[in-house]
């Protein structure tokens, strides 16, 4: 490594640059030369050692690896922000310029403060109601207390949680059905042959096609005066379930069918009972495939839910996006952008959680999971 310095460079400047170089862990600093006035000046060791924790060896590899693992993703993100920022400025829509990172951040903050305001209003509402009720009760002890719920508009955060709860409900229900069903068709070739056409037929169906049917069926079948769940919630959950069940079914079936013949022979020689066979031999062997399916399913569930919420106006992030689109204020695009990023981030988090669960359940701790 050589460093070029101008003739009139201040010694301190040169020194600072050298320090920066030295702090860079990737740099092998056994040879530092400085060009000044066309002359090569070899820096004395003493100067280098002024930099503090400077040694002549490279940093340990694990530190290098860690720094790489942190720096490279950050570099990628910065590059993305740069492209987004510059690109956004050049797109003009009827609602103004396409939002860049700064506008998105502004809208994020405003959504947050709206949420906080709404919470304060809600508290005030309940406070007023309680006060009023206790006043009336003091006047007339036989008064029947009326408690009304706060009916303010759900905020962005509320919508996010609604979506999360919906997707998890749908996904858990789907998994509870899909895993046993997948094991069943994986164990038996005949059942598989019977079920396969149905799976192949329904697997590629978009949620939007299911939605009207599900909505109609739910409103016809799910009738009660005091429903435990809102109809819109049930509709969303069922749509998510129907769309996200297939990857888990297929992957579980494939994993189950792929148990090695040797292990099956062991099971036969031991005359394991069917349940012992499934729990001791089949499931541990199929676990990696089951989780591959679950992760695909959860990804699909999340995507499907947003689409279903948009189309059916069911509460959730999808509705938030649609409402903002219909609203058409100068802030709308920025808010939608926030929603897009939040949707992506939650999807990422959900996948990480599944990966963690897979690590927990997998017997092979050395397996590399991505």
């Amino acid at each position, binding site marked *: 490594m050589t460093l070029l310095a101008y003739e009139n460079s201040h010694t301190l400047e040169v020194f600072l640059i050298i320090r920066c170089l030295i702090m860079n862990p990737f740099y092998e600093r056994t040879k530092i030369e400085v060009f000044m006035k066309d002359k090569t000046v070899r820096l004395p060791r003493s100067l280098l050692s002024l930099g503090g924790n400077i040694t002549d060896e490279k940093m340990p590899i694990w530190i290098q690896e860690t720094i790489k693992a942190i720096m490279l993703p950050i570099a990628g993100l910065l590059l993305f922000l740069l492209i987004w920022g510059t690109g956004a400025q050049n797109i003009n829509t009827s609602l103004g310029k396409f939002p860049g990172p700064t506008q998105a951040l502004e809208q994020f903050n405003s959504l947050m403060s709206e949420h906080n305001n709404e919470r304060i209003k809600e508290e005030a509402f309940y406070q007023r109601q309680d006060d009023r009720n206790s006043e009336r009760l003091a006047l007339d002890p036989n008064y029947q207390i009326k408690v009304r719920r706060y009916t303010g508009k759900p905020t962005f955060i509320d919508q996010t949680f609604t979506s999360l709860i919906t997707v998890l409900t749908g996904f858990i229900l789907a998994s509870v059905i899909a895993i046993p069903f997948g094991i069943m068709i994986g164990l038996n070739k005949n059942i598989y042959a019977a079920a396969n056409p149905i799976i192949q037929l329904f697997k590629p169906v978009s949620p939007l096609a299911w939605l009207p049917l599900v909505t109609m069926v739910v409103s016809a079948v799910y009738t009660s005066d005091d429903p435990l769940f809102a109809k819109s919630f049930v509709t969303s959950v069922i749509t998510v379930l129907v769309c996200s069940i297939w990857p888990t079914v297929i992957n579980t079936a494939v994993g189950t069918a792929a148990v090695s013949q*040797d*292990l099956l*022979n*062991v099971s*036969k*020689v*031991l*005359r*394991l*009972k069917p349940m*012992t066979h499934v729990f*001791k*031999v089949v499931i*541990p*062997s199929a676990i990696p495939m089951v989780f591959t399916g679950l992760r695909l399913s959860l990804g699909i569930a999340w995507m499907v839910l947003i689409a279903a919420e948009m189309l059916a106006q069911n509460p959730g992030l999808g509705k938030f996006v649609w409402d903002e689109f219909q609203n058409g204020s100068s802030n709308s695009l920025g808010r939608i952008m926030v929603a897009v990023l939040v949707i992506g981030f939650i999807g990422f988090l959900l996948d990480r959680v599944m990966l963690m669960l897979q690590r927990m359940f997998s*017997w*092979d701790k*050395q397996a590399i999971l991505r």
Partner: protein
Amino acid sequence: MNSTNKVINPILELTGVGIEFPTPKGPYKALTDVNLKISKGEMISLIGHSGCGKSTVLNIVAGLLQATEGGAVLEGKEVNEPGPERAVVFQNHSLLPWLSAFENVELAVKTIFDKSKSKVEMQEWIEHNLNLVHMGHAMHKRPNEISGGMKQRVGIARALAMEPKVLLMDEPFGALDALTRAHLQDSVMEIQKELGNTIIMITHDVDEAVLLSDRIVMMTNGPSATIGDILKIDLERPRSRIELADDPKYNHCRQQVLSFLYEKQRKVEPLTKATRYKKSKEKQIA
């Protein structure tokens, strides 16, 4: 030579065993008319070229395959499904990778002695069998944490723990290096001396067959493979591989097996397409 092999009171009897596999080109007859009687405590080796149906014989005895003609009778009962009284030691250990050595043996013991042994007895029995194969020190390790030889030892312990009437070993040491193999052969001889198991073992290794067996069953080449000859090994036990290396009787037995395999049942492998192509190229160039 067959006449010298009269077996009185056999524990296992194969009578006229044959098997046909359906293939797209019509049925393929892999085995025909296999007759064999094995007495209690005998150690039998099956030897033959690859593809001659040794494993098929073993799988029929194990119950993993069904003979299409004849059948196997174990202590007066016909074999028609797999079971723990005919425990199998598989070539590639076949341990469940998610269970430790102890748990692998435990799975077998719990299934078989569910009613007849208490928890403490089972525990002791599992440990006893693992100690028998010298795996007591590593019984809580998973298969991927131990060497190939150790895995095979656990496989043997699992099979022994089933208290089988016949122990079936399908090329048990085929995947091991020569030194480990010798160790395990000694272990098997030791265990057999102690427990007096009836063992049927498939092998490719002439030395292994002569060293371990009471009789060597030599198979002809397939299709329609059958027993070509049976050689009785009249060597005194305990056998030591070092002393036997210089023993004329031992060498005579070896010579007989070798002559069966390489003279009488010489297997001519057909030239593969690649070598044929290469040869024709060479001719062209010449």
